[in-house]
């Protein structure tokens, strides 16, 4: 459904791209006060220990040390660091500093000094008396562990029932069943069963976590942070430090990538406390090692699947049991877990029964948290791999099996109603679903039929292909809310303020495009400012693929309101009825009369009937229309060493209208490569004592440009009626498919299936040895 858009779905450079490439001071550390105290965090060398005593007396004597925070001098209020709506579905299981440290790298004290050098010296002088305890480093041994309880402390709690049983090392648990899976499996002609281990993954965004705080002339605390959720940060600081919300301001400057890794607290509590106590600006910049080892990772999981089908290829039943490792603290524990089911299983909506459940356990690993895909990539790896296994057992073409069983437009799945974000979900019909087209088109673009399953291309070289389908969501119905204010300037330009958080995905640009389209103007007449809890209206933040759909809809609503308002204003100016006024973005015309927007805007500010023309509108989702994708990957393997490279990766995505086609493609491709990293080269590795070894770019290998083959990324012609100009989300879906695609391609090449990520040449080698 191609609409005749003038700005939306047209090539539009991002509003900040040029300035950022030209090196403007715009990121959090760039705009930090030059005289800010430097805050450094002392971190635990033990995976699990009780902090018996901390002596900071020697450290305090060091000249230049202004403040040291420990558990002895900070508020003892449990909270969750997760940036989520209130009440959060994550347990409040974190104290600013606690009696326990729960992973190597956990915070023990914060030192604020006039220079980094002095802060580091002071850290050496802090004496900590640890009672080292036995850690749990194997998530399969965590639940009901006889020796170790990772969260024995009082005061921690869930905000509503999420299966939080800390004495059993459970952060969350969940069960759901539609129909009767055991019955349906009994009736199945063919059953496949398998277990997959997806690994933790590091976000590895280029900009390290940074924040700084200062007191303004109203003595209000102003906090700048690389955060995806400024409003949640404000609320959580308010509740934890006992400061009224109105005394706090949180601002998000330009952010160098988040991917979920900045959707939770890093240094914000510490700089806030330091500034409040010293009255001086304070800054905390994480080192790359801290980003790897003391922020968050993806939740590693074990996913066990049983799938039953009739011999004609209809899938009867899916049973999915999942164990998820949330690490030391429970941020995003339940919600990531649930999405393994809720944003993967509905793909196969024709089943008679489906069951999903399991536990999320604590371990003494780095805390796991939000990460693009948010459970869907882990689930996709398992489900899309086992579907290939099923196809083989049925003697069916794997693409045909998917086509027969997957979601189509106007269909639904009972899972939507049952599974939400920690609570019940929302029923919805797929008003836009071009998955069948995506599969068909992708197959063509890949020339699948020529290449499947494997072809010899040289002495020791073969090429094979693998495929996977995926879905995601667009915001969280009823929980995610965004709002937008539009103010008319003299000269007919619009000042747009939104809470929506641009972390590099381009929401500022996309929102400006939506406003420009609706108001019939051009991008240069739209100015945008975002993510400032003082100056912009509320937005839940950048997560759950919500900025285009939720924040974009809010902007669309505001623009519609503004249009309506302007027409009323013009009508008054021309002394006609509003319904007799036509507006083309520049001029209001009614019969022979007309007035330009330019003149109207100047008149309203300076001349007569003077008032500021401004509107504010909000939006929260009633549904979460999923984007869909079909992915096809071609890889070349060495048949002796099993080294491989990506030749081509084809995706066809249905994200409704692409508001910004180039940026949408950029999102998809960035996601693919990030997912490919998790599938192939990235590995989070600990030593036997729980210390993270993969904590630099030397030891943790994200894809470089040399690892990426030809990417062919197309979009289906689709229109989502509930989305702004027909758009759905596109931020996460790109990441979901590479693990299954690669796993399937390896199987097609060698007949072995690698059940854990990353799928390294070495693992293929081991699997081949085992096969012999």
């Amino acid at each position, binding site marked *: 459904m191609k609409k005749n858009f003038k700005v939306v779905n047209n*090539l*539009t*450079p*991002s509003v*900040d*791209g*040029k300035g*950022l*490439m*030209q*090196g*403007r*001071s*715009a*990121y959090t*550390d*760039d705009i930090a006060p030059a005289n800010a105290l430097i805050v450094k965090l002392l971190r635990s060398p033990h995976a699990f220990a009780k902090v018996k005593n901390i002596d900071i007396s020697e450290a305090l004597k060091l000249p230049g040390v202004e403040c040291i925070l420990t558990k002895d001098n900070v508020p003892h209020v449990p909270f969750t660091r997760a940036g989520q709506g209130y009440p959060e579905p994550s347990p409040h299981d974190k104290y600013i500093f606690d009696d326990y440290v729960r992973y190597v790298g956990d915070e023990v004290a914060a030192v604020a000094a006039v220079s980094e050098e002095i802060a580091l010296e002071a850290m050496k002088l802090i004496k900590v008396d640890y009672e080292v305890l036995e850690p749990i480093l194997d998530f399969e041994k965590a639940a009901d562990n006889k020796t170790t309880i990772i969260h024995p402390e009082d005061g921690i709690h869930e905000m509503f029932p999420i299966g939080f049983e800390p004495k059993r090392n459970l952060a969350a648990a969940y069960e759901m069943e539609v129909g009767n899976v055991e019955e349906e499996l009994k009736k199945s002609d063919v059953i496949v069963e398998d277990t997959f281990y997806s690994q933790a993954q590091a*976000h*590895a*965004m*280029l*900009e*390290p976590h940074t924040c700084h705080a200062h007191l303004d002339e109203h003595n209000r605390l102003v906090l700048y942070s690389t955060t995806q959720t400024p409003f949640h940060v404000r609320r959580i600081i308010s509740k934890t430090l006992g400061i009224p919300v109105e005394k706090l301001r949180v601002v998000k400057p*330009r*952010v*160098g*990538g988040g*991917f979920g890794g900045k959707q939770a607290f890093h240094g914000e509590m510490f700089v806030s406390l330091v500034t409040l106590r010293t009255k001086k600006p304070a800054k905390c*910049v994480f*080192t*790359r090692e801290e980003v790897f080892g003391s922020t968050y990772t993806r939740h590693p999981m074990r996913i066990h699947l049983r799938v039953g089908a009739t011999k004609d290829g209809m899938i009867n039943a899916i049973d999915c049991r999942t164990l998820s490792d949330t690490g030391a603290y429970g941020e995003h524990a339940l919600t990531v877990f649930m999405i393994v089911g809720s944003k993967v299983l509905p793909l196969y909506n024709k089943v008679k029964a489906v069951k999903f459940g399991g536990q999320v356990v604590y371990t003494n690993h780095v805390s796991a948290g939000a990460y693009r895909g948010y459970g869907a990539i882990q689930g996709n790896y398992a489900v899309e791999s086992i579907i290939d296994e099923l196809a083989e057992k049925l003697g069916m073409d794997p693409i045909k099996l998917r086509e027969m069983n997957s979601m189509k437009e106007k269909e639904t799945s009972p899972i939507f109603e049952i599974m939400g974000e920690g609570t019940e979900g929302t029923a919805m019909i797929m008003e836009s679903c071009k998955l069948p087209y995506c599969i068909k088109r992708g197959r063509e673009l890949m020339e699948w039929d020529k290449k499947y399953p494997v072809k010899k291309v040289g002495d020791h070289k073969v090429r094979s292909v693998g495929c996977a389908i995926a879905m995601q969501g667009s915001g969280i119905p009823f929980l995610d809310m965004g709002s937008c204010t539009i103010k008319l300037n003299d000269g007919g330009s619009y000042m747009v303020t939104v809470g929506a958080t641009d*972390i*590099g*995905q*381009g929401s500022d640009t996309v929102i400006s495009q939506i406003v420009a389209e609706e108001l019939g103007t051009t991008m240069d007449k739209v100015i945008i400012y975002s993510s400032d809890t003082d100056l912009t209206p509320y937005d839940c933040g950048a997560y759950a693929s919500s900025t285009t759909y939720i924040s974009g809809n809010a902007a669309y609503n505001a623009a519609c309101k503004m249009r309506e308002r302007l027409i009323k204003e013009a009508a008054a100016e021309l002394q006609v009825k509003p319904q007799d006024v036509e507006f083309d973005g520049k001029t209001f015309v009614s019969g022979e009369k007309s007035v330009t927007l330019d003149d109207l805007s100047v008149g309203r500010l300076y001349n007569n009937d003077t008032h500021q023309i401004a509107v504010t509108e909000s939006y929260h989702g009633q549904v979460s229309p999923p984007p869909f994708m079909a992915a096809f990957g071609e890889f070349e393997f060495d048949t002796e060493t099993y080294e491989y490279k990506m030749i081509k990766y084809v995706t066809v995505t249905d994200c409704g209208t692409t508001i*910004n*086609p*180039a*940026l*949408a*493609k*950029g*999102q998809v*491709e*960035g*996601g*693919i*490569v*990030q997912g490919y990293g998790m599938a192939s080269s990235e590995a989070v590795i600990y030593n036997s004592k729980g210390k993270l070894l993969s904590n*630099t*770019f*030397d030891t943790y290998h*994200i*894809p*470089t*440009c*040399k690892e*990426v083959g*030809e*990417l062919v990324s197309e979009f289906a012609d689709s229109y989502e009626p509930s989305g702004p100009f027909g758009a759905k989300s596109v931020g996460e879906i790109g990441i979901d498919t590479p693990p299954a695609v690669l796993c399937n391609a390896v199987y097609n090449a060698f007949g072995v299936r690698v059940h854990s990520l990353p799928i390294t040449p070495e693992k293929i080698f081991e699997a081949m040895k085992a096969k012999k």
Partner: protein
Amino acid sequence: MLVKFNLNGLDVEFNVKPGEYLLDTLRANGVKSVKKGCDGSSCGACIVVVDDKPVLSCSVLTAQVEGHRVMTVESIQEEAAEISEYYSRHGADQCGYCNAAAALMIHALKKENPNPTDEEIADYMVGNLCRCTGYHGQQLAIKEYLGGKK
């Protein structure tokens, strides 16, 4: 110690510590375009051009650039703006954190090898990590900017 060098066409003199790195000296003196992505010689976000050669400024001591010419993106504003246009055509203008360094690399590449093959572009840019774009759009943008031969 005092270190004198030429920064973006201007002779400058900074009082630095012997073990201080060029990245820190530049950022402390207002040059914020140079980014500290990893401080471990691995990510490329700190690239500056010294005597026409791109170097990792997190790994070069300020003392080592005594008497040399140092260039950051502040001195190639128009070129950066033009490169950005190509980036935006391919959706490569995302978080922007790696972009200023990329602009300098592209500038240096153009001087060293004005008509690179696709492989030569990739080999030149390999040390500039990007987590947002997946590189594909970037590589196409650079190829087009340089007038592209296969």
